[in-house]
């Protein structure tokens, strides 16, 4: 499997201040501005007061820094009768995200493992269906899933939502894990079988310990996806367990007179903080894992 520690492969570096380097860094800098601009706007806006925002320039730094919008977004913004901002949803989001992430990754990892190393008749067909499933818009599936959850009797429970996240995370994650485990030398798997390890023994003792990068990728994808999910969170749970994004939507969409852009931006940043932090912490592993899960097909 590809290893990023091997380092870049492009043309050889030359003098630091060569024309090529000036152009290279120039281009990178300009592109970085495009990518950073929205974050900058969000941060700057969230630190301004409303009068300053009304003056117009969204790119100018705040004259008077105020943290009031953050406080309001976290603890005071109202939806309907509840005026406790995002704080209400934070723990709900954690409670939804943790089991959903664990279960969806566990299922997808086992799928990928079974598909790549224990091929049985028809397995590839199911996988192909799964991949096509990745293209089905979630909206289309809302109704059938409501019915299925109702029939199983877990509609409206946390487990219902966890199940939904597991189902919709399955296609892409299974693809990644399958690709990853396919790149594991087959002889390793054979050796383990000769050594008497069974399906689960090989998975838990041999495969999982050597799959940290791909698990990090799956973790980031799932934390990001599930934490940011609004649709399932609102449809398959009840108000006392609504995730943070529902509150975010409520804050952003409950307009009291004028739109409080500063509060909206603060709320947005607060909501995005968890995936951002996870991403910043394990970003490097993410790239390495992507290399392992996507390069081999």
């Amino acid at each position: 499997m590809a290893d990023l520690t091997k380092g870049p492969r492009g043309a050889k570096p030359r003098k630091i201040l060569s024309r090529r380097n000036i152009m290279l860094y120039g281009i990178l800098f300009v592109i970085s501005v495009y990518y950073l601009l929205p974050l900058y706007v969000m941060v700057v806006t969230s630190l301004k007061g409303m009068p300053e925002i009304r003056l117009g320039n969204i790119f100018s730094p705040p004259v008077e820094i105020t943290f009031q919008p953050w406080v309001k977004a976290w603890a005071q913004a109202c939806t309907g009768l509840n005026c406790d901002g995002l704080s209400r949803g934070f723990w709900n989001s954690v409670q939804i995200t943790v089991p959903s992430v664990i279960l969806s990754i566990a299922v997808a990892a086992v799928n990928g493992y079974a598909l790549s190393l224990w091929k049985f008749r028809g397995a590839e067909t199911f996988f192909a269906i799964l991949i096509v499933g990745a293209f089905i818009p979630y909206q289309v599936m809302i109704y059938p899933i409501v019915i299925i959850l109702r029939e199983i009797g877990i509609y409206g429970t946390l487990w219902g939502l966890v199940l939904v996240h597991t189902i919709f995370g399955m296609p892409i994650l299974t693809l990644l894990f399958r690709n990853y485990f396919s790149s594991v030398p087959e002889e390793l798997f054979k050796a383990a079988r000769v050594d008497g390890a069974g399906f689960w023994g090989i998975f838990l003792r041999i495969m999982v310990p050597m799959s940290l990068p791909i698990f990090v990728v799956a973790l980031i994808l799932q934390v990001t996806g599930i934490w940011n999910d609004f649709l399932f969170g609102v449809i398959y749970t009840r108000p006392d367990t609504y995730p943070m994004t529902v509150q975010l939507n409520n804050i952003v969409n409950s307009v009291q007179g004028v739109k409080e852009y500063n509060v909206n931006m603060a709320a947005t940043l607060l909501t995005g903080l968890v995936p951002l932090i996870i991403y910043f912490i394990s970003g490097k592993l993410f790239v390495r894992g992507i290399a392992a899960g996507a390069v081999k097909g």
Partner: protein
Amino acid sequence: MNSVKLALGLLASVALPSVACATDLEVTHWWTSGGEAAAVAELAKAFDATGNKWVDGAIAGSGDTARPIMVSRITGGDPMAATQFNHGRQAQELVEAGLMRDFTELAAKEGWADIVNPPSLLANCTLDGKIYCVPVNIHSWQWLWLSNKAFADAGVPVPTNWDEFVAAAPALEAKGITPLAMGQQAWQNAGAFNVLMVAVGGRDLFMKVYGDKDEAVAGGAELGPVFKAIDDARKMAANSKVQDWNQATNMVITGQAGGQIMGDWAQGEFQIAGQVAGTDYTCLPGLGMNEIISTGGDAFYFPVLSDPEASAAQEVLASTMMAQATQVAFNLKKGSLPVRGDIDLSTANDCMQKGLEILAAGNVIQGSDELISPDTTTQINDLMSEFFNDPAITVEDAQARFADIIATAE
């Protein structure tokens, strides 16, 4: 009986202080703007006072965001205890499917049939002789809200009807004031159209189009002035670039816009902003043309629950919503009219008084929600939304498409 329950409830809560013995009822709705939230708080307060607990399930956005969630929850077998719907045809199928509670008994006991005015409100809650919902307010769409400040700035008198308003538009524009504030959501565009149909065309025309679904009328010359008026509105609103209705209202409040066609719920926003009817803003029911208002409104539906305690509490909530005191408190905040004909609203402001007078005089029509299906409503919304946003669509095109929609309407 209810008082006995209440007493029992109180007793229980004294006896077992650490356990929530009062029944928690989850109520979902999409009332999240300032005035709306204040009004909901009144309902919650009244219900909490019965010893139960109102669990608020507000979903911001609009009915279009919230309704799918509500419908999914009800059909998914995890219903809330009560939920807002615009009464009319939105919830009809849920009722038919037996998912909603029948309040006929309670209504008979409390004599709703005698107190609810106009009776069409209760009729809209009735299916096969049984009552399935509790109307809480009357909302009328047919209002033009004008900013006195904007007209003062422009140096023209505050108009007294739509035609004067159109005539005053150039003066407003000359001062950089947007004549007509209009949110860019489709329902607002379509709402304005329906209002103009009643205001410019009159009640009979409205009923022919939406009641009889007469395609010939919809495509005919009778509707010509209505489409001219909506074309005027389009031009006057060309510079209005806000999304939500209350942002548009805010433009009127701050004098950035001359006026807005919006239902009486806009009043709540003026109130929250501390504005006084007559001095800061002017309201023209029926746009000053035909003083007729529609009597649509909000109603609460109560899904069938398996828990007997919760079911009992549902009755308490229904009864509370219909109670005189609640009606007064709620509607004053909401800016809507109460559903009871037997209450004194002398505390209401000028605009509400005007509405009450029209109501008392019986100058009412059914709301379009009650006459046409949500499907048709969506099609009209789409049409008007495109019309407002694309100046290339001619009045004739728009009318032809409108006639097509009416032809297939249910």
